[in-house]
């Protein structure tokens, strides 16, 4: 029977890629394990192997095709004498959803900015260049490493492998092995080593392959890095950045899908940053590297491949501790950050159709939190919904809601509603994972509820 060869996924979050090159041609006989083609994404190149014997009877996607969606049939393999056209129809192989689909898909939207960052951050007339979050982070590190010889990056696979998520791509080539340091898989140890080096005044950037693994190092992040300045009566600080992907990726299960925003944001002595746009990732990472304090810099794997405009400036920084009004509106305030922004933007578009005008605040920094911007917005709209992927108890939404109660109680016309990840460990099954995360439907419903609509 004829078999379709499908475009494979190289990672849990890959949605499309480039069919770079066919290594076999139509009519070639292939056997299991033969390399058929090379595919590329922005972070890796991989070979597609045949899994069956037969004749490569038809190539459906030619060399050099960009943006081939995962699971698209790219070729047909037939048995001897069989007709290629007898291949099964190119049906999508996605499982049938058994849960009600959320009101809108949340998969990999491009980052939409319909409000520029605050004017003070970008001079008028600045040219913009579109880049991925991944590139923005790389550029931020490279610029700061050029500027200051005390800055170095260490972590698992940051050097020769070019980064597990390709964020440190090219840094080894430019800065050498002294400043781009592959570590053994020992988070507790290398985080402690980096903190010790920072106590002497060096400026380490510690990449955790994901923040899930930073739990092994959390003692040094909190007990050694965050508290030393205070415990030393101001004598000895710790200028260090802990960065890496945080939160749920896609289908990687409970131990690899957790949002640590609330955890770190509770600690005095730390700064905690969780941006959304490529510009903010770049500008805030540069600020974090220059900051004399320990900064936990939370990234998101799903955002890495998304592009948005970054100002073309020699030295573009974004101040830590300032929220950004992403969308101006008058009816209800959404307070969110990081990947929460993707939900907020989509929900706001839905609500606009129903005549509800949403103001979206991207917190960007979680500690110190820019309460002033939140309160100013809530005083205007009188209503607030918070959105985050983290768990509800003691979450960022809980904190924002409490601050509103403390500082703007007389201005609010409805109780604040938090939309959060569900209070469960992250399940693996696709439908359950979707249910565990926030969805547009519940955000829209919450917005209507606080507007009494």
């Amino acid at each position: 029977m004829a078999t379709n060869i499908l475009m494979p996924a190289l990672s849990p979050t890959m949605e499309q890629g480039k069919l770079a090159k066919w290594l076999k041609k139509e009519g070639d006989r292939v056997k299991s394990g033969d390399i058929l083609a090379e595919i590329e994404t922005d972070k890796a190149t991989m070979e597609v192997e045949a899994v069956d014997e037969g004749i490569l009877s038809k190539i459906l996607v030619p060399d050099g095709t960009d943006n081939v969606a995962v699971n698209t049939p790219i070729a047909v393999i037939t048995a001897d004498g069989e007709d290629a056209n007898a291949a099964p129809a190119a049906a999508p192989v996605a499982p049938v959803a058994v849960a009600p689909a959320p009101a809108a898909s949340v998969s990999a939207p491009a980052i939409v900015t319909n409000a520029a960052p605050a004017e003070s951050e970008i001079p008028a007339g600045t040219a913009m260049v579109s880049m991925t979050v991944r590139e923005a982070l790389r550029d931020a590190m490279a610029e700061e490493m050029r500027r200051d010889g005390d800055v170095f990056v260490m972590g698992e696979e940051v050097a020769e492998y070019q980064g597990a998520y390709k964020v440190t791509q090219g840094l080894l080539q430019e800065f050498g092995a002294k400043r781009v340091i592959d570590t053994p898989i020992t988070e507790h140890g290398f985080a402690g080593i980096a903190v010790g080096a920072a106590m002497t005044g060096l400026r380490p950037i510690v990449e955790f392959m994901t923040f899930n693994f930073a739990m092994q190092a959390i003692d040094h992040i909190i007990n050694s890095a965050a508290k030393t300045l205070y415990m030393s009566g101001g004598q000895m600080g710790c200028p260090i950045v802990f960065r890496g992907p945080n939160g749920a990726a896609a289908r990687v299960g409970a131990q690899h899908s957790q949002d640590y925003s609330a955890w770190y944001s509770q600690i005095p002595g730390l700064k905690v940053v969780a941006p959304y746009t490529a510009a903010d990732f770049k500008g805030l990472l540069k600020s974090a590297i220059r900051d004399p304090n320990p900064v936990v810099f939370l990234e998101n794997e799903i955002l890495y491949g998304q592009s948005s405009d970054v100002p073309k400036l020699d030295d573009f920084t974004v101040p830590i501790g300032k929220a950004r009004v992403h969308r101006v509106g008058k009816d209800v305030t959404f307070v969110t950050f990081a990947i929460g922004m993707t939900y907020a933007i989509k929900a706001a578009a839905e609500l606009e159709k129903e005549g509800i005008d949403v103001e979206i605040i991207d917190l960007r920094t979680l500690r110190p939190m820019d309460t002033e911007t939140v309160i100013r917005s809530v005083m205007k709209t009188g209503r607030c919904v918070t959105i985050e992927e983290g768990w509800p108890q003691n979450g960022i939404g809980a904190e924002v809601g409490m601050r509103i109660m403390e500082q703007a109680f007389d201005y609010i016309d409805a109780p604040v509603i938090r939309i959060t990840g569900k209070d469960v460990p992250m399940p693996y099954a696709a439908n359950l994972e979707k249910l565990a995360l926030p969805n547009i439907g519940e955000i829209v419903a919450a917005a209507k509820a606080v507007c009494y609509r």
Partner: protein
Amino acid sequence: MAVAPAKSAANAKSRATKPAASAGKQSNSLKEFNRDEELEAYRMMLLIRRFEEKAGQMYGMGLIGGFCHLYIGQEAVVVGMQMASRENDQVITGYRDHGHMLACGMDARGVMAELTGRRGGLSKGKGGSMHMFSKEKHFYGGHGIVGGQVSLGTGLAFANHYRGNNSVSMTYFGDGAANQGQVYESFNMAELWKLPVVYVIENNRYAMGTAVTRASAQADFSKRGASFNIPGEQVDGMDVRAVRDAGSRAIEWCRSGKGPFILEMQTYRYRGHSMSDPAKYRSKEEVQKMRDEHDPIEQVRARLLRNKLATEDDLKQIDAKVRAVVADAAEFATHDPEPDPSELWTDIVR
């Protein structure tokens, strides 16, 4: 001639002595101290001893709160190591840190006032017994989490290596911390990257109340780096000369770019783990025997007199000076005001 398989590069010089076995013996291989060195060691060890005795008293009077871990009995370790090190070498240790700070030259008033939680304390009263630091004296704490200082101390060595400044990190920890996972993560990276760090394991025989043999599958701590090819040596940590000797070799090893070195200092603490520990897990006789036969200060004192390097009067004068320093520190720490309430909110971030 048959040679035993080398367990380490320093095997030829290693001395697998236990304090009990080395009592009163003179080792021929030991480099003797000259008069100045003996007097320096005597004065500094005595300062630590008297300081700690005073701290114990003040704890009893309620002037010092929280945890207070005294170094009495272990003085030869840090004093000998400091005699072997250079000015820019760093020191980092755990919570039993008062002796290390004094040996680094930090001000006795500042240390004592930190113990009493006063504004003149080295951390303005905000750190306490376990958390003091001095950039100027290259003392990096003072850490309360068992084993934490081992990774941090390796990081100090990383910074030395990065800067190429030829300094060595003296990273102290106890026999208890030696069982922590991060110690071995650090050993691995230190040897992999050839970092200049001397791991000084102060084996005082008890991790809090647990005897070494009850907690350690391998109680020869000098071998703890074997899987990483880190050489190690056991040292009579009650003999300041043996400590300086071994320390000099280890530091030279590190400074010449060969990577880390482990020194197991076989020592003994006379007091409990902390002030609140009655030390019921060992006999009074065991402690008394140590004091009588191995006391690090008495050893120096006896040598000074025996070798006619000092008279009883000379030593009395030193004692009086040390007592005056400690009395002044205690006086200051008792009357210095508490921190201003506004200090609650300072030094959190820069």
